[in-house]
Structure formats: C-alpha cells, structure tokens
C-alpha cells in the first residue's frame, strides 16, 4: 500500500508501536515476529480515531457534552455518553480511513481465499494503564464481521466505547486525563471447534513447570466471558503429561451465526458436554506453542487460543492474544531458592540452619 498513515498489517507491528496502535495490536505483531501462529489481520492507529473526530467535527459535541456533565451523577454521565455516542454513530468515517480499511480487508480476503471473510474487530487500548482501562469497559469485541461496510461500523462501535459511561467516569477519576484515543485490531476469524485460555504457569501455585489450560467447545467467548465451566487441565511442560484434570459439563458454546454474520449461543449436544474437549495431540500442540510464546516474551503468559473446527493440529492452533501473567504470586514465599546442598540435606534430618527455624 502506497500511502497508509492510519493502518498497518499486524505482522509489521512491534511493541514500540504500542503508543500508536494500542497494546493488543502491538502484542499480536510481536507474536507474529516470534513465529507464533496468529490469524492474519491489520490494525488501526489512534490517528484514524483522531481523523474521525476531527473531520466529522465531533470535537465540539464531545467537549460540550463533557463540560455540562456532573461527575458522580450517574444520570448526567449517562446523558453525556448518550449524546456523544449518538453523534459518533451518525458521523461518517473519513474517506481516507475507509479506503485504507477496504484495501487492508481486501488483503485479508485474498489471504483467506474468500471475498468477504469473517473478521473479529476489537478495541486495542493505549496507555500504560491499559490493563485497568480494559477493566473500565474500554474493550469491545465484534465477532464474525463480514464486508467492508460492517467492518467500518464495528470499528466505529469500538471508538464509541471510549465514551461509555464507565470509560468517561474512569477518565474523569484520573483527573488530568489524557485525550481519549484508541487503536483497533481487525483479524481473520478462526471458526474454533475448541478454544480457551492457558497460563504458562500454574496460576494457583506459581509452578513454572506447568501449563494450566482452560478449554471449552466453540468460540472463545464462552470461556473468556465465564459462561461455561471449562475443562481444567494442568500439563507438565517438561513431559507434556496431564498431571491433573477436571472435566466439567460444558453446556453451551458460541458458533458462527448460520446467517453468516455474528456469533450465536447454542446448547452443546449432550454427547459432547461431559467429554474432554482436547485430545492428546491438541494438548501437545498447545503446550508447544505456549512454551514458544513464553520463551519469546521471556515471562509467564496468559494466552487466548483457538483450534480451528475440523482442523488437524498443530496447523489448526491459533493464538489470538497474549499478555504477561500479572496475578500470579511468586512461587512459594519461603522457598529455599538456593544454597548449600549438604546443609539442606542436614535440614532434612532435622539439623536447624544457622539462621534458626526448622524447615
């Protein structure tokens, strides 16, 4: 693409692009750089959002609505949110941005081998506190979106989410709030037969020799949204053995809408509910890719993954998101991290160490 100031293909992004493209897009770029299988796609920079606000003359509406709002007054904040959202939904996307999206989408279509391939459109938050921002509701996901028009609508909907009542309140609470901005990730959809998340450590015990996998049928929505109790596996990184497993009854799943757009929630047929949704090969492939991601980033990762329906593994395994594990407590507080082997053996026999206190 000759001139594309507002977009970039995912594989060209690196972590340094986070300020412009947001954390999600940047980390997908890093994954691709690390040779991790990530569905192809592209990202919109915050400049696209800024162009949208500037060219449609929305800034005045936004400033007006926010200046008349009383922080802490729920009705007032909701009113401002409504005013801004309405205005944004009716504003056109700048032609230059729309043309870039169309061209990038055409590339995805070519790679996918179909004219209007389904894509996932997600917000990609910007800023050091993006984790917390995510928590504040600035994360939107639109699945199974087809056609340039609908992609543009979904992109706009992501932008709109910047002005949800929660997001407005959150920024207001921060005081000297930065100008709101957001990147967007557009990625080819994987029609997942099974999907879920994995931690490249046991998040409960902190054991780094384990990979903890949660898996359920269908698209990842059900697991991420906590709508099902997924199969819960603990797998040894070293041998690939399943060390512990709890198979739960997985009663619902998300599948692509038969109409072609969006995802729908359906009941899982009885015969599939109580069986483990991952076979040995799939587990091995996940462990493999999980270790690769962890090695690339150099720290324990919390990874969203999907396995394409009816695909064989490892070819069908895709990573759709990865971020550092932040919630894990460091493995065992008073662990004997190192020391003289012989005095440790002595301690086994009840010889108290010089520092006192028997292990």
């Amino acid at each position, binding site marked *: 693409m000759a001139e594309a100031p507002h977009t970039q293909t995912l594989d060209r992004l690196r972590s340094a692009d986070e300020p412009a493209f947001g954390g999600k897009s940047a980390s997908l770029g890093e994954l691709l750089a690390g040779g991790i299988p990530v569905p192809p796609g592209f990202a919109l920079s915050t400049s696209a959002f800024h162009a949208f606000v500037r060219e449609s003359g929305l800034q005045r509406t936004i400033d007006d609505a926010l200046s008349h709002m009383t922080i802490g007054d729920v009705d007032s904040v909701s009113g401002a949110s409504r005013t801004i959202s309405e205005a944004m939904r009716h504003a056109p996307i700048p032609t230059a941005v729309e043309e870039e999206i169309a061209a990038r989408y055409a590339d995805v279509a070519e790679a996918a081998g179909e004219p209007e391939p389904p894509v996932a459109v997600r917000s990609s938050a910007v800023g050091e506190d993006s984790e917390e921002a995510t928590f504040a509701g600035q994360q939107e996901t639109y699945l199974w979106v087809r056609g340039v028009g609908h992609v543009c609508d979904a992109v706009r909907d992501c932008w709109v989410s910047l002005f949800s009542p929660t997001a407005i309140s959150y920024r207001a609470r921060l005081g000297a709030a930065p100008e709101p901005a957001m990147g967007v990730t557009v990625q080819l959809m994987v029609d997942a037969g099974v999907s879920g998340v994995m931690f490249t450590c*046991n998040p409960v*015990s*902190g*054991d*780094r*020799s*384990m990979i903890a996998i949660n898996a359920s049928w269908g698209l990842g929505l059900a697991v991420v949204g906590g709508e099902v109790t997924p199969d819960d596996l*603990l797998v*040894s*990184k*070293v*041998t690939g*053995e*399943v*060390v*512990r*497993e709890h198979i739960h009854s997985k009663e619902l799943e998300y599948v692509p809408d038969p109409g072609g757009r969006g995802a729908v929630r359906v009941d899982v047929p009885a015969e599939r509910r109580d069986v483990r949704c991952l076979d040995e090969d799939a587990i091995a492939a996940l462990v493999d890719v999980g270790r690769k991601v962890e090695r690339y980033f150099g720290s324990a990762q919390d990874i969203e993954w999907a396995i394409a329906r009816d695909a064989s593994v490892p070819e069908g395994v895709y990573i759709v998101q990865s971020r550092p594990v932040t919630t894990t407590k460091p*493995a*065992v507080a008073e*662990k*004997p*991290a*190192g*020391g*003289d*082997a*012989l005095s*440790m*053996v*002595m*301690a*086994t*026999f*009840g*010889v*108290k160490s010089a520092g006192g206190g028997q*292990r």
Partner: protein
Amino acid sequence: MASTTPATGSFPSPYEVETLPGCEGWEEMYPYYGRFLESRREADEGRFWFWNSMHFPEPMPAFDVVCIDSPYQGIGSWQNRVFAVPPAMGIDWRVVNGYIYITGNPVLDPEKVAERAEVFQKRAGYYYENWDELYGKWRSNMEQLIKELSELEVPDLPEYEPDAVVSGEQNTSFYRVQDAYSRTLRMGDLMWQHHFELLLLGYGAYATLAEFCKANLPDIPDQHIAQMVAGIDVILFRPDQELRRLARLAIETGVDGAFRQGRTPEEIDAELATSEAGRAWLEELEKVKEPWFHMATGDGLYHFYRSWLDEPSIPYASLIGHIAALQAGQEIERPTEQIREERDRLANGYRELLDESAQATFDDLLNLSRKVFPYVEEHKFFCDYWFLTSWWNKIREFGALLARNGFLEDGEDVFHLTRHEVASALDELTLTWATGGKPAGPTHWPPIVARRKEILERFKEWNPPPALGTAPEKVMDPTLIMLWGITDERVRDWASQVEGGSSLNGAAASPGTIEGVARVVRSVDQIGDVREGEVLVCGSTSPAWAPIFSKISATVTDVGGVMSHAAIVCREYGLPAVVGTGRATATIKTGQRVRVDGTNGVVTILDGDGDG
C-alpha cells in the same frame, strides 16, 4: 474384626483390639517386649502405631521375629547411636494378632536436638563426602559376610566323634552345633547392621532433592523426581536381564521348543539335556545362577520368600514368557537408552525452569542423590535377597537337624519356634545326644508347632487397621517419612478412612486412569490367580511379582511410596498405580470393579459386589 472404639485420638486403641476367636494364647509366639502390656497401657495408647504392612504384610511366624528385632536394632544403632539424627531415635514395635505395628521415638528436648545435630553433621558429612569409598568398603564387607555364611557348616550329631576331635583339630559336635547356631544368628544381626549403615543417608539425600523440587515447582509429580534420580544399570534389574539373555540364547540355539507353558523346570531341563545345544544352554544357566539366582521371590523379610535357586519355577516362568514374547516378535529388552534419555530430558527440563541461583543447588542435590541412590537400590539385592534367602536356608539346616532327631515333624516347622526356643531345643538335643538320655523335645515341640500354624492361618483372615493409638500432631521422624511415607497427610487420610467410604487415597505413583476388576493378592504364592487385565490389589510387591506386571492393568498397594517396587515397575510398564492407600486389601474385594486414578492417587470402588 478390628474394634472401632476410638482411642484418645483418631484410631482404635491397641488395647481394645480383640483376640480373634480360636487364637487364644497367641501372645506366647512373641517376646514380651513386643506386646501391648497392661503395665505400659497409658504410654502406648498415647503413641501412634501404624501397621508396617510394607515389610510385614502377613502374620509373623515366631522365628521370623528375628527380622523385626535385628532390623530395628540396625536402624536404632545407626540413626540414634552412630549418626544421632537430631529429632529421632529409633523404632519401637508391637504385635497385634500377629501383625506388626511400629512407631518412632522422637527427641523432644531442644537442647538434646542441638547436641545431636553437632554429632550428626560431623558424621553424616563424613559419609556423604566419602560415599563412593565407603560404599565400596560396604560391598566388600557384605560379600565377605555372604561368603562366610555360605561356608558355615551346620554339623550333624554323629554316633561317634570323628578322629579330628581326638587329634584336637576339631571341637566336639555339641560345641560345633551350638557355635554354628549362635554364629548364624550373629551373622544375621551383622547383615542388618550393614543394611542400615548407608540407607538413611541415601534416602535423606533423595528426600531433600524432592523437597527442594517441590518448593520451587509445587506441582512436580513425585514420579518425575524419582525418574530423574533412578539408576539405569541397577543390580536389581540384572537377574531379569540375564533371563532375557538366556531366552534369546534359547531361540538362537534352537532349544526354545523345550520351554512350553505348563512344564516344570525339571521337565524342561530333562529335554534340554538330550541335545548338545540344550546342554550348552544349561551350562550357560549355571554361570548365571551365581549370584543372580539369589534373587528373592519376595521382599525377603519372611522365611517363606525363597530365592530363585530354591524355587526355579519362578525364573522358568519368566523364561517361558520371554521366549513366547520373542517368538511373537515382541521387544523384551528394557529400553535403557530411552530411559536414560527420558531421565536427562526430565532433569534438563526442570533445571531450565529454575532461577539461576536455584539451578546450582538443583545440580548439587541431583548429583548427590544420584551418587547415593545406587546404594538405596542395590542394598536390597545384597541384603534382603542374596544374604537373607541364604540365611533362612541356614536356619532350615538346623530345622532339618531337629527333625531328624524327632523334635519337629518337618524341618520347616523350625520357623514356628522363636529363636530362643530353637536354642533351647538345640540345648536339649545336644545334651541328650551327649548323655544318651531320652529327650522330651519330640513330645514337647510338635503340638506347639501345630497350634501356632493354626493360629497363623486364622490371623490371615484378619484385616489389620492401618493405625492404632493416638494420631500425632505432626510426624517428626525423618525415617518414618522417608522409608514408609508416613506424612501428616497420610495420617489424616487414614484417620478419615476409619470412617469408611468407597474411595481410597494414596500416593500417585504412576499416571493414567483405568477401570477394571480387582484381584486382591495377599501373598506372592497367590499371584497365579491373577487374570489378564485385572487390577492388582496387594500389600506391596517385590521383584518376585515381576511376571504379573505384563498381565495386569493397574496396581493398588497398601503401603509404599513413589519409590516402592510397585511404583517403579508400573512406571516402566506404563500402568496406573496408586500406592500407600493404607487399607486397599482390607477395603477392596476380589471381583469388584474399581477405578484407579494413578495421576491423582485415588482409587474408587465402583460396585459393592465381590467374592472376597
């Protein structure tokens, strides 16, 4: 039959356990100090006694009590008096309805613990530092002792003393019989002293590595730690390795036709003797016998666990199996290269997951464990198998002497007398031999033996509770933890099982889950009953059980940790195993369907029926 009256703690009081009907007077088989005496009721009820079903799964014959006293003498000497392990002295034992319960003697005074710590550090440090040299010395001591034992002659009592007595070259037969008996007993004691010289330190190094791994990687499976340490070319595997070699040789030289299912060793030997190739094979077999056929058919602590030399049907059954497998085109070799690779893969895999500072400690602990572990694995062959099976045979010679003189109906009956009663019988025998008087022994001993045999048979029907007395607040004794796997968790599990229930917890010894029909096997002579695909439920296993692991689908044991024989073999065969359940043989009945979850260490009884 066990009383379920709770004692002060969670287990039945040993004093409330009733004598089985028809077994009145059983106590006289055992020394007074091994009984729960009224005079020390208060103290003994307050202690935690667990059934040592790992070493004593069956009721104890009177003579076999030697194999309680001597080992605990050995543990106590080394742990308490030589190394002075700071928090623990030795092990006390008691007998209830023929079954052996043990407990540790803790050191509670902190000053005493500190004092012992100094002794321990100095002496244990010396051992670890000079391990290879000390182990080398140990081996030559054991080989010397075994040689002495095999050369020890049990003399007969002749009509007239030989000329050698007249010439002064030889003592009188009275003296020689008495001397041989006391030397035999002392050699047994000495073996048990050797047995424990290095064992505790060997286990201690391993236990430290395990604890270190778990502190850093809390979910690491026990079997992975064991696999990282386990030896590859261990003496224990040699006997079966030799059988596999002989099986291949039989096929190569075309004599495999002699090894047909259902034939006795004598029949096979007879056919082999008819051809030159067959005779050559038999010659090769003779070379293998010393020492590899000193393999025991059981874990060695009972007189009835014989060696392969005594019961050739056991190695011959293996030979027939190996030959049939080879003929069917199967691989019978232990995949040592694969085991070695797996061992390195595990060690490297876990190592690279540790912090840099921890990696150095891991290396040191792993190296120390690997250095000391050959002893842990190999002492069994020298002590428990080779020496002990030979030693029991020496006792049999005294039994034969007593039987020839009418004191016993059968030489084997000697094992139903205590070692002191045998001494007493020999006293009378040699006395009346000398005096020419009429001995009372022939009328005195046989009814006693008959009564005791009857009592032991009845004892076999009893299911001993896993523990008696008061549950400890915390298990402090490193030996109990390392050798028997008596952890706080295990004690709690047992306590909860006193309530009963349809599932049992144990150590996850070999991963995988299967459902199958249970076969409860109480002793090695019942292993012939096991059918293809059944789940083996037993007290514990030993190398003698080897032939059945290719038949069964999983193993559940009462006692043992992840380094127990059953655990090691199941990992090799890829069978799920749950060990140390406490009372699988008491809870599960033959014929019941069970689920064995070797990954999580849980056994579930799926239905209530069984013919047991």
